[in-house]
Each structure stands twice: as structure tokens, then as C-alpha cells.
């Protein structure tokens, strides 16, 4: 169990996420082929592989610069809707990390929350719109409630992952209000949103790393 995360930790988590995404090509591609234009896996994979390829450079950076660099890199490499959403999330989050050497559980919440808010603002989306927001929103909400509850950090992390999973699953029965699935006559009902899934992978891998 880790209590704080520094640059080295964050880079490690990013590498683990890259691997997780790489391994789930068909599932994610199929989901976006059904609900969107089928490129979500390719977009995310390209972005995270790029992150892996600049590992050395990232390890030299302080946390704030790391987040900014990761944001800029994801933004330009992922492209499309998710590129700018992740880019904005990381770039916005970097502001709360200026001068910070290590993130404790409160900082981690602040970072996740500012990323969530950036995404919601950028995408003009809210929970229930059948997007990646549904995963992150539930995760951040559960995290916050657990913090307010003064739970053990391990419990907080567990609650976060569980909420993220529920958020992801909940997109299945939602009607799309944002993204391309909106243009389908059935509004995508019956299918999980691909962006909600890749968001879940990231939260889950972060949690798992912290719990080690």
C-alpha cells in the first residue's frame, strides 16, 4: 500500500495503463464500432504508447510539469474527442500540482476532481450522457464521500474502483446525449460506452498500483 505518489510512481502507473489498453484492442474497438466510428482503441493506444516512448524524458520532470507534458502528449497523439478531454484533464490538473513533490490522498482527490471538472466543462457533458464522464464522476464522488467519512485510504481506493465500475456499467442502458452515438436512432441503448471502459481501466490500474 502506497500513501503518496511521486513522479516515478505516476510514470509507472501510466506504463501499466498503456499495457492494459494495448491488451484490450478488440473489445474497445468493437464497442466504438457499434456506438461511434471505431477508432477509440486506436486513439487511446497511440496516445499511451507515445507516453511509454518518452518515459525517460518524463522521469526528469516534477509532478506539475509531468502532468502538463502528459496532457499535451495525449492531446496531440490521441486526437478526436478523447484526446482533447484527457489532454485538458491532465493540463488542468497540473495547476494544483505546482510546487508539489508527492501527492497524498487529498492531493490525489484534488487532481482527479479537477480533471473531472475540466472534462465536463470541455465536453459540455454531465453524468448520464453515456460517456467516459460516467465512470470518472462516480469514482470521484465515492472517493470524496470516503474521505469525508475518514475511511482508511485502502477503503477509499476500493470504494473508488467499485464506483468506477458501476459508473461504467451504468452507461449500458443510457441514451447517448454526446458523441456520435447520439446520431443512432436507438441512441446506443444496450451497449457500454467505450470511453467509459477505458476510463475504468485507468482508474482500476491506478488503484491497483496504490494497493501494492
Amino acid at each position, binding site marked *: 500500500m502506497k500513501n503518496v505518489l511521486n513522479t516515478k510512481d505516476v510514470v509507472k502507473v501510466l506504463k501499466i495503463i498503456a499495457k492494459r489498453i494495448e491488451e484490450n484492442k478488440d473489445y474497445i474497438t468493437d464497442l466504438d464500432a457499434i456506438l461511434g*466510428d471505431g*477508432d477509440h482503441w486506436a486513439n487511446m493506444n497511440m496516445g499511451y504508447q507515445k507516453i511509454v516512448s518518452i518515459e525517460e524524458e518524463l522521469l526528469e520532470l516534477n509532478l506539475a510539469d509531468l502532468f502538463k507534458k502528459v496532457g*499535451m502528449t495525449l*492531446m*496531440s497523439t*490521441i*486526437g*478526436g*474527442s478523447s*484526446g*482533447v*478531454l484527457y*489532454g*485538458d484533464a491532465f493540463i488542468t490538473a497540473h495547476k494544483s500540482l505546482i510546487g508539489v513533490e508527492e501527492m497524498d490522498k487529498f492531493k490525489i482527490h484534488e487532481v482527479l476532481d479537477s480533471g473531472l471538472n475540466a472534462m465536463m466543462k*470541455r*465536453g*459540455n457533458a454531465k453524468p448520464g450522457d453515456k460517456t467516459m464522464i460516467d465512470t470518472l464522476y462516480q469514482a470521484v464522488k465515492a472517493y470524496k464521500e470516503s474521505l469525508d467519512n475518514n475511511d482508511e485510504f485502502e477503503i477509499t481506493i476500493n470504494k473508488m474502483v467499485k464506483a468506477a465500475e458501476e459508473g461504467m456499467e451504468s452507461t449500458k442502458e443510457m441514451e447517448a*446525449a*454526446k*458523441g456520435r452515438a*447520439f*446520431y443512432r*436512432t436507438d441512441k446506443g441503448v444496450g451497449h457500454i460506452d467505450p470511453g467509459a471502459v477505458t476510463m475504468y481501466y485507468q482508474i482500476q490500474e491506478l488503484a491497483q498500483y496504490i494497493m501494492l
Partner: protein
Amino acid sequence: MKKIINQPDNVVSEMLMGIEKANPDVVYHSGVEVISRKQKKDNKVGLVSGGGSGHEPAHAGYVGYGMLDAAVSGNVFASPSPDRILKGIQEADSGAGVLLIIKNYSGDIMNFNMAKDLAQMDDIKVETVVVKDDVAVEESTYSTGRRGIAGTVFVHKIAGAKAEKGASLEEVKEAAQKTIDNVRSMGMAMTPCILPAVGKPGFELDDNEVEIGMGIHGEPGIERTSKKTAKEYAEIMVKKILDDYDYSSSEVALMINGLGSTPLMELYILNNEVQNILKDKGIKIYKTFVGNYMTALEMSGCSVTLLKLDDELKDLLDFESKAPGMRV
């Protein structure tokens, strides 16, 4: 799929190299896929537009004196990322700020707005306008709403002329917004287009079927119907436009736009029918544009665009443009 391409992955960059080689007035910034003017005028408001590729001559063909300063290309039918757009903004900026002309697609909106935020961190004054001229889709606050299609070209033209005349960012934005407020379009498609990277059509239409209101990426329209005469197509499209906006007893600019593979012959036949209808309704046509202005690869079909003009807009529409996509 038979296309004059090399690798599907390289179509955008090779196209932009080809544009740079054809047009001595522009320069291509590789990697960020930006085409910008070679000659800059100090303290002119910069105009940037862009979006997915596959809509040629939009957007790189509208870079030139009297229209855009820079055009930013994404991959085929995919929004460019904010870093690319930022480069476009930087190239277009000559001290008087930059106006972004965005078509109303959520990807474009997010990426252009993000780029705006990045540019403002660099202390460049940036404003945006969003074009949503396609009356096929109902406007709504719930979803992204109406799409931006061929009417965007009029926004480039009007804002471009205004900027060239030395107006401020505020004024240029106002002229662009006035154009947006007064422009409406309606389209139809007859055959699909093929994304180079996909290699097969994204939808199918019977040999006897057309889709009224289909978008410029093959997004669903409002009705699949059996094929009709040019006169009937004209009636359907014009009616839908006039139902949405009252152009009666006004003077308009008319654009008859081809989606890519519809011959000019057919666009002129459609023009004849559309103008007959408008004349009957007492709508006066001030200027007509017939051609491929906002395409969807090799889709066949067309769109009709009306822009209501006042004296200011007439003057700006008549202003010289040296952009290869729309010479005035």
C-alpha cells in the same frame, strides 16, 4: 475502392504538400497539418478555420487574401487536435487577435476551444464563432444540435473581407456572427463516400434511393426517399430552408454546392430550378455560387445555401478574394 492515393495513412499530409506545390501564396507546416498564408499583414485580425479532411476545397483552399489566414486539417472526417489548431492560431496572429470559425461538431468544438485556451495562455487574443447552418437537424440545447456545412464558406468570405478591411477582432466576430445568424443550408446525398483508411462505403443507398438531409460525413438525414427530378429536389430543399428562416422579400447570396462527384452540369440544372422557385417567392438573388465548396470525399449529392444580405454583407461578399477555393 479506387483512389489516386499512396498510403491511406498519408493522404492528409500528401494532399497538403500538393496544395503547397500548387499555390505559391501559402506554406504548409508539416506534422501539425496547417496551411497558412506566406505574406502576413501586420495588425490584421487573423482568421483560422479547419476540421476533418475530406471536405476539399474546405478548408485549405480558403486560405488566401480576402479569406482565411490559416486552415488546420485533422485526419479524414476527424477534428484536428488542439496543438495543431494552436499552430494555426500562431501563424494567423499578427497582433490584432484571431477569430476561430468552427463548425458545430462536438469534436471540433472541444478541440478548437481547447486551442483557444492554450493560445490565451500564450497571450494571443482569440475569439470563436460556431457555424450551424444545416436545417436538416433540429437545433437543441440538449445535444450538439445543428451541423455546420456549406454555409461556413460564406462565413469565411464575409469575415475574411471584414478582416482585410482592417476591422477589429470584435467587429470581425460581429460580421461572422451576423453571417451565421442569416445563413441556412439543406443537403441531400445520392451515393456514399469511402474513407481511405476504411476502404468501403460507410452506408448504402439503393440505385433508386436518395437521402434528404444527410450530413457531410454521411450522418443520417431526415428521410430516405425514391429518386426524384431536379425540380422536386429543389422544392424539398428550398422549402425546408424557408420553413426555418424567413427570407421573403430579401436579397440573398445563393450557393449550390456539390458534395464531390456530382457533375457541374447537374448543379447548374439545380441552380436553374432553385432560382425559379426563389423568384416565385419574391426572393432576389444578389450573387450565385455554383460548384464544389464543401464536399464529402466522392459522395454524390448537393446542398443549397441561402444567406440574407444587407448592404454591409453585400459589400463584404463582393470584396476581392484570392483564395483558390472561392475567387471573387
